[in-house]
């Protein structure tokens, strides 16, 4: 094939341009640490990377949800624990009453029960760190349990002003969990109520008020025959609620473990898909640089020589 004087420069420019493009690609790969940065570099990879990115964000959000729900469940648990202790104290007091108990002792017990009622009321109106009442169902902005008192300041009745709905949140795709414990439920359906629940027969405040009234009036037989069995129902109900809370916390912990594992898997998949193998990239870059230098040196040598150099 005949070679003209511009054949060398043309081919030289074309070849060195190819090498520069290759260098640029490898340099970008080395500096970003990514094998592709635009959709055109790797269309299938980009589609997959964007989906992995969305999945990763979603998994992180589920972990955040789990953290938030765990905080709520922990706050509920602390209150449940406190209530359980109070019921236990009330049950102990009631169990200690019989026909031989002195009036003075009964009055003292009544006063103690009055204090327990106040403490239970405080716990039933527990607020979380954001100021939300945690036992009012989805009515979180006002105290769910409102007490009416007599002239002496004794609680004579407690009404529930919350509702019977609980909020559930997603902890995995399509999986919702509620960390809420409902204050009261007299509908017979849905989540059990903590203080009042028709299915379990729990009615803590009325039972405590009844106990207080029986102690005050010296009706020891009513304490034994009515109040003690009633408090047992409250005790059983709170134990059920503590157990449910434990199940929720356990579910949240397990799901968080799965989410953590999934986040790691997604990161690994993303890394395998997008991360440049720097040792390979840098080796290829070195090879391309060597080829580029060789092309430049040979090009300069060839283009400097012509027959003119040897004539005359």
């Amino acid at each position, binding site marked *: 094939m005949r070679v003209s004087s511009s054949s060398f420069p043309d081919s030289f420019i074309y070849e060195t341009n190819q090498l520069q493009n290759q260098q640029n690609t490898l340099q970008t790969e080395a500096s970003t640490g990514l094998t592709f940065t635009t959709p055109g570099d790797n269309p299938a990879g980009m*589609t997959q990377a964007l989906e992995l990115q969305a999945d990763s964000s979603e998994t992180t959000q589920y972990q955040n949800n789990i953290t938030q729900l765990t905080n709520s469940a922990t706050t509920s648990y602390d209150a449940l624990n406190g209530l359980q202790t109070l019921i236990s104290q009330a049950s102990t007091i009631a169990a200690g009453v019989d026909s031989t108990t002195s009036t003075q002792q009964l009055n003292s017990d009544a006063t103690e029960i009055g204090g327990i009622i106040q403490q239970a009321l405080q716990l039933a109106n527990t607020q979380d760190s954001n100021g939300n009442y945690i036992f009012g169902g989805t009515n979180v902005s006002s105290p769910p349990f409102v007490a009416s008192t007599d002239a002496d300041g004794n609680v004579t009745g407690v009404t529930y002003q919350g509702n019977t709905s609980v909020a559930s949140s997603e902890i995995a795709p399509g999986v919702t969990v509620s960390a809420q414990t409902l204050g009261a439920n007299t509908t017979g359906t849905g989540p059990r109520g903590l203080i009042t629940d028709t299915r379990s027969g729990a009615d803590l405040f009325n039972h405590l008020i009844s106990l207080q009234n029986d102690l005050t009036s010296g009706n020891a037989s009513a304490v034994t025959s009515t109040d003690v069995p009633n408090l047992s129902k409250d005790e059983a109900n709170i134990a059920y609620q503590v157990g449910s809370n434990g199940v929720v916390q356990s579910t949240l912990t397990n799901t968080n473990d799965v989410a953590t594992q999934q986040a790691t898997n997604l990161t690994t998949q993303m890394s395998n898909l997008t991360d440049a193998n720097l040792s390979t990239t840098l080796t290829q870059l070195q090879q391309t640089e060597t080829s580029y230098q060789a092309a430049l040196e040979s090009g300069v040598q060839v283009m400097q020589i012509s027959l003119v150099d040897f004539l005359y």
Partner: protein
Amino acid sequence: MIGLFGTLDLASNSLSVQEEAMEVTGQNLANVNTTGYTRQQLEVQAATPLQTPIGQEGTGVEATGISQATDALLNSQIQAENSVTGSLTAQQTALQNTETSLNEQISNTSTGTASPSGITADLANLFGSFQSLSTDPSNLTDRQSLVANAQQLATEFNQVSSSLGSVNTQLNQSIQNDVTSSNQDLTQIASLNQQIIEAQGDGGSANDLEDEREQAIENLSNYVNVTATAQSNGGVNIGIGGVTMVSGGTATDSLETYDAGGGQLQIQAQNAGTHLTLSSGSIEGDITVRDGALATLQTSVNTLASQLITQVNGIYSSGYDLNGNTGADFFTGTDASNIGVNSALANDPGAVQASGTAGATGDNSVALKLAQLANTNIPGLSNQTFSQSWAQTVGDLGYTVSEVNQQVTNSASANQMLSNQRQSVSGVSIDQEMTNLMQYEKSYEASAQIVTSLNQMLQTIVDMDDT
């Protein structure tokens, strides 16, 4: 026998021919770096011999013309490949601009240096905010964060829509510019045709003008696919899309743009009034991207935004805010160009309707439904989720870009091969020209030596009379 004076003429003619050959060589060397120059060579032949008693006797050499070392088939192939390259390069540029408009960036999982951006990341942030709100529906900080992330997504949609619109405008502008340049080339080709026809009509050659015309045709072929038909008088007729644009020395027609609706320019022959369907060239490349990948992408972005508005508002409007108000929309607008967030929410995050029951500020049912939209297959998005649909859209554009990038590489390689082949035929070789120069120089010296010898012989004859 031609005698001494005949031989002197022979030598003199030879000197002239060698000198002319050197001139052609000089012309070749002078244009060794001239783009589009075709090497020339002096065509010579033995002069008409004389009949003598001892047979035919030569009368020397004569120049018959200056020819070009050209290959019409190669030129035609280069014109066609130029059009293909013009189209692909225009497509590549437009698609790369389109790709940049999307602003989709993935993060580096190892270094964490680049944070993801674009609609994918913003969609994830929006649905993440709905999730956060669902865990604490009355929380004002979560509400503020939701409104901010929604505004970020809406702004991203607006920017992508605006950038894609700009690419569309640039393509129409580019089409307009290329039409102007094409018409200049057509006028130049007609003018050069005229000069070449006149020169060849006088029996001469017009090599340099032919080079210039070939350059103009190749330049034109970058913009549009041309049909160049050589005429016996030396002219070349140019046709575009089946319409004759140049006939001999006359530019019979020209290109013009017309609005096919919505400001989308198409091409027609100005005089013939015929719509031109182009098969290659940069104008066709621009139209292909504008009406193909770009239009598809704009539709996809608008559909995604429109579906987001419809789906979110459909759930959201039934919700209640912290004050028990209901019925408002979350997103405003109809597509990517005008999507926005209800302006009332920016100043009052409490107005976000996250609850499903009036007065129940802890109710998260609406926020939860909105969060769950992230994993809902939307019928209007081919039963894909929002993020899947967008990833698919980005991937589809990527496939188009990747394909065109590969085609540009192949076309550049084909162009390089054709260019090498043409250089092999038409390019000037300094080595070859220097060799020719030496050859002509030696021939010139030899012819001059004949003149010297003849001069001595004639002097001898003159001196004979003196003795």
